[in-house]
């Protein structure tokens, strides 16, 4: 029973990370109908930059905010410089571009920072809470992770549903041409969507790095798990991404806890496959047959 509780708590903490990376994928998918395979590499880069700030003497919180700031800027630059050119082309072009960006950033990080993983500080203790005499697998830092993900998700929810900017962002994503006819600067909304996604990804990077360490390839599995979560949630539903993240986090935690860690990536692929077979539009997709 203790093991089950521990695995559940661990799954929730990991799932929050998968959920927020999935949210970043969903934001980009909604805005530009592109799956950003470079999401993991982008958040690796911002985490390295943040780590460099800490080495340079910056306080932890400054480095976290710095990572998110770098993410916003990198996301905007990637959209303006690379994605803008392939947005209206065949989908495969965009896939190749994001894959190329993934390889480029990982190689670049290896050249600058070497491929040996390094540690990244945690905001709070990684030592699990004590319940009675047993230590559970949930630390103050996990509380922080889940809390931050919840706060970011709530803020995004407010942005999209309560503000004029959010309304314009959604209009540009759902119907670019109609949005332009209503005065929405669609290109700017796409840039902003990428910036937001990369900023959120950057936050996920600094949240997860204390437990995964930081290397050019350490976030590759997270992208795969986040992708499974996004597809499970329906790829165009932010809420679905978060729920999908939690489900994937729990499934992976149970599988690696009871059956062995080596099976975790297989379990993620199984989730992906089952979703595509049983409910291809995902759990929360808004995609219905459109009547025009």
């Amino acid at each position, binding site marked *: 029973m203790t093991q089950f509780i521990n695995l559940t708590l661990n799954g929730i903490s990991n799932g929050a990370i998968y959920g927020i990376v999935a949210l970043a994928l969903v934001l980009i998918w909604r805005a530009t109908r592109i799956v950003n395979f470079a999401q993991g590499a982008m958040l690796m880069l911002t985490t390295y930059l943040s780590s460099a700030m800490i080495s340079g003497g910056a306080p932890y919180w400054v480095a976290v905010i710095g990572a998110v700031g770098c993410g916003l800027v990198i996301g905007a630059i990637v959209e303006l410089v690379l994605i803008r050119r392939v947005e209206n082309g065949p989908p495969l072009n965009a896939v190749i571009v994001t894959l190329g960006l993934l390889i480029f950033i990982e190689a670049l990080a290896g050249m600058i920072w070497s491929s040996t993983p390094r540690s990244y500080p945690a905001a709070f203790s990684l030592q699990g809470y004590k319940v009675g005499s047993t230590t559970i697998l949930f630390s103050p830092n996990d509380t922080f992770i889940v809390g931050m993900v919840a706060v970011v998700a709530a803020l995004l929810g407010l942005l999209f549903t309560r503000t004029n900017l959010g309304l314009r962002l959604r209009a540009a994503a759902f*119907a670019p041409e109609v949005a332009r006819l209503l005065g929405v600067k669609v290109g700017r909304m796409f840039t902003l969507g990428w910036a937001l996604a990369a900023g959120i990804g950057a936050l996920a990077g600094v949240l997860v790095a204390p437990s995964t360490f930081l290397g050019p390839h350490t976030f590759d599995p997270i992208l795969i798990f986040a992708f499974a979560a996004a597809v499970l949630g329906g790829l165009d539903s932010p809420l679905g991404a978060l729920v999908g993240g939690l489900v994937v986090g729990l499934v992976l935690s149970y599988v690696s806890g009871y059956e062995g860690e080596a099976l975790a990536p297989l379990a993620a692929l199984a989730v992906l496959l089952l979703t595509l077979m049983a409910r291809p539009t995902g759990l929360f997709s808004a995609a219905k047959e459109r009547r025009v």
Partner: protein
Amino acid sequence: MLRVSGLTCDYGPVRALSGVDLELGEGQITAVLGANGAGKTTLLRTLSGLVRPTQGSIQFEGHELTRLRVEQIVSLGLVHVPEGRGVIAELTVEENLRLGALVRGGDGGSLADAYALFPPLERRRRQAAASLSGGERQMLSLARALLAKPRLLLLDEPSLGLAPKVVAELMATVKELAAQQRIAVLLVEQNARSALSIADRAVVLHLGKVVAKASAAELLADQGLLHHYLGY
């Protein structure tokens, strides 16, 4: 208020519009008639900036539109309601309307006015626009366009797929709006009779060229022309 001269538009090797001249006055309804492929939709898309002309000029209240972007053109008060009504199905009725009001920043119309004009929309304001019927969607797209405070309204096939009774109501509403708010309307229709029933003037397009310009009454009386170009 609108003066189009020598407007020519190509899709690759295909000439969609060829030297179109057109003038519109305030509060006037002009019907644009013609068969499929005559260039009616291309004309509207060029006016609103979605399509760049190869040649020609579009003067709208002192602005040369061919040099402006879509977003700038709409903020001048030229509002295009595209074919298929352009309702954003994933957003709610109210969100669609808010987008219209945002076109003019804070100076757009109020949602209350829109609901007063189209009461069925108020009952459904929290529902996704996807759940609306064809007639309600047309109401929504018209209401949304009006919130952008148009000086010139471009309507592309508003009667498409609507019941005759709904079409008649719609046309009456458009006529009333044009008269009351001094909005000029460019009304593209395949349904020539219902368009001519409210239009002051009409132009007939054939293969990208203007082949006839007349008052609506004259055109309705010209059986030969109607038969030749519009299949009546």
